[in-house]
């Protein structure tokens, strides 16, 4: 019998399969417990965490559009202390790698947040320099590579945890951004976060969102995300985690062939809560059909 293995070693952490859930689309995992078998996932990435609790944005927060959706949640989260006290232990019970997504609005916030996370049992930090929905930060750090480099540098100094930096597709130059983050000490790169978009309520004659702009995600962004993952994978010598509009196993394999070691499922969780499990099973089926023993055989093949 043919035996295919989906496991991936990524920054020294063992993932039993490459399918993770993207920050902000899966809460702290427990929300989906009982709807799917969360323990089957490759790993969990937390809702974006900030040093202090955040209530998030007022007004409309989600708005469906053709090909996807816009969101403007604004990093609502309980803060890192409460995450460590109330949520982390429950997440660890799933016995899969836990990645803490860390956001911030100042370099000091990022550093202090990383310092706290460094002392916990999380497996990795995903540094969010790309949230489009928070003023004074988040994405601002993700636009100019010189600014991003400084944040990554400072966080690198404070933590020994594997450090993955999540890039914004709105960066001035995505490859340069990735290269600068790696130079600053990133152990891995994940990309892409949401695209900056907007919508207008034609009856109110006003933008749908209080912040005017919001983050666009969903199947429509996949070709652009895939192109960026391809370009970045070729340019850096650290592993890449790909995301952006993945809705089925074929999309996932495209990202792996473009160079991704791991992939994240975001908006598709809302389209079909079972999608992650279906993607894991789909990748395995594809590997058996195609006589692929290990994902190493097809990763970055193009």
């Amino acid at each position: 019998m043919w035996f295919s293995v989906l496991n991936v070693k990524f920054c020294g952490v063992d993932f039993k399969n490459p399918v993770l859930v993207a920050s902000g689309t899966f809460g702290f995992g427990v929300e989906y417990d009982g709807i799917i078998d969360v323990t089957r996932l490759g790993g969990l990435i937390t809702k974006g965490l900030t040093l202090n609790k955040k209530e998030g944005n007022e007004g409309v927060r989600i708005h469906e559009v053709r090909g996807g959706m816009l969101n403007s949640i604004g990093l609502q989260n309980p803060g890192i202390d409460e995450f460590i006290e109330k949520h982390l232990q429950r997440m660890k019970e799933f016995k899969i790698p836990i990645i803490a997504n860390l956001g911030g609005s100042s370099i000091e916030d990022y550093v202090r947040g990383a310092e706290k996370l460094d002392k916990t049992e999380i497996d990795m930090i995903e540094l969010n320099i790309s949230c489009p929905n928070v003023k004074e930060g988040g994405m601002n750090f993700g636009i100019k590579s010189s600014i991003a480099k400084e944040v990554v540098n400072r966080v690198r100094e404070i933590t020994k945890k594997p450090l993955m930096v999540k890039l914004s597709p709105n960066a001035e130059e995505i490859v340069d951004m990735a290269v600068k983050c790696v130079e600053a000490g990133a152990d891995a790169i994940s990309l892409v976060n949401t695209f900056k978009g907007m919508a207008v309520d034609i009856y109110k004659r006003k933008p749908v969102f209080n912040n005017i702009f919001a983050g666009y995600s969903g199947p429509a962004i996949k070709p652009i995300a895939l192109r960026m993952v391809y370009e970045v994978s070729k340019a850096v010598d650290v592993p890449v985690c790909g995301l952006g509009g993945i809705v089925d196993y074929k999309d996932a394999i495209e990202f792996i062939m473009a160079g991704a070691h791991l992939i994240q499922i975001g908006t598709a969780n809302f389209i079909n809560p079972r999608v992650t499990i279906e993607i894991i099973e789909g990748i395995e089926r594809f590997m058996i059909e195609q006589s692929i023993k290990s994902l190493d055989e097809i990763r970055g093949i193009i």
Partner: protein
Amino acid sequence: MEYKEVLVYSNVNVQDDIYVLSLEIEDDVRAGQFYMLKAWEEEPILARPISVHSSENGIVKFAYQVKGRGTKILSSLKAEDKVYVLGPVGNGLYTEKFKGKIALISGGIGIAPMLQIAKCLDGEVDLYAGFNKSPYLIDEFKKYCKNIYISSEKDTEYYNGFITEIFNPFEYNVVICCGPEAMMKRVVDMCKIYATPVYVLMENKMACGVGACLGCTCNTKEGKKRVCVDGPVFKGTDVVFSA
């Protein structure tokens, strides 16, 4: 909560853009809960949160108004068609704890969850239903309600004005309300004067329906709460209305 594929039993156009969709679902549903419904594969992408109108004998009924792309597709469903459902979602109402005289107050399609609530309540139930044009879905309430009061802004056969103008919270032990935010705020303000306990059923756009995305939050005295899993039922006095 489960995500599953179920069959349409019937889908009836009761009036204009108002429909009642009956699905073959064998769940234990609490009044005030809802389901995420999806009858499409690719587009639109998100499921639609629709409250339970009634639930018995393996059939869950949903009353809804056609508003956009999703509800338009729902309105075209026929018997035996497949629908993906996630639910039942939300806290719902623990109807057994309510005693005495109870007022149900609805505005427009806010009448949808009231039938199951009326069915489950033990006390003496009065319905106050406000409409913009002609009333709908009223007949079934006759079995469960002592008095039914109807208002319409356009149909002169009924009280001409807002439903809140003919309702007196002083007469009731509990008030349960679902409708436009401005109306719910008015009802809560009226109930505060007499310290009459009041519950509201909130709604919002939703993506996940499980409490993960934080897209559907509303403002309360204790900060942001998720309408999908912390609600949709809230104590009226806890909600900070935006209207």
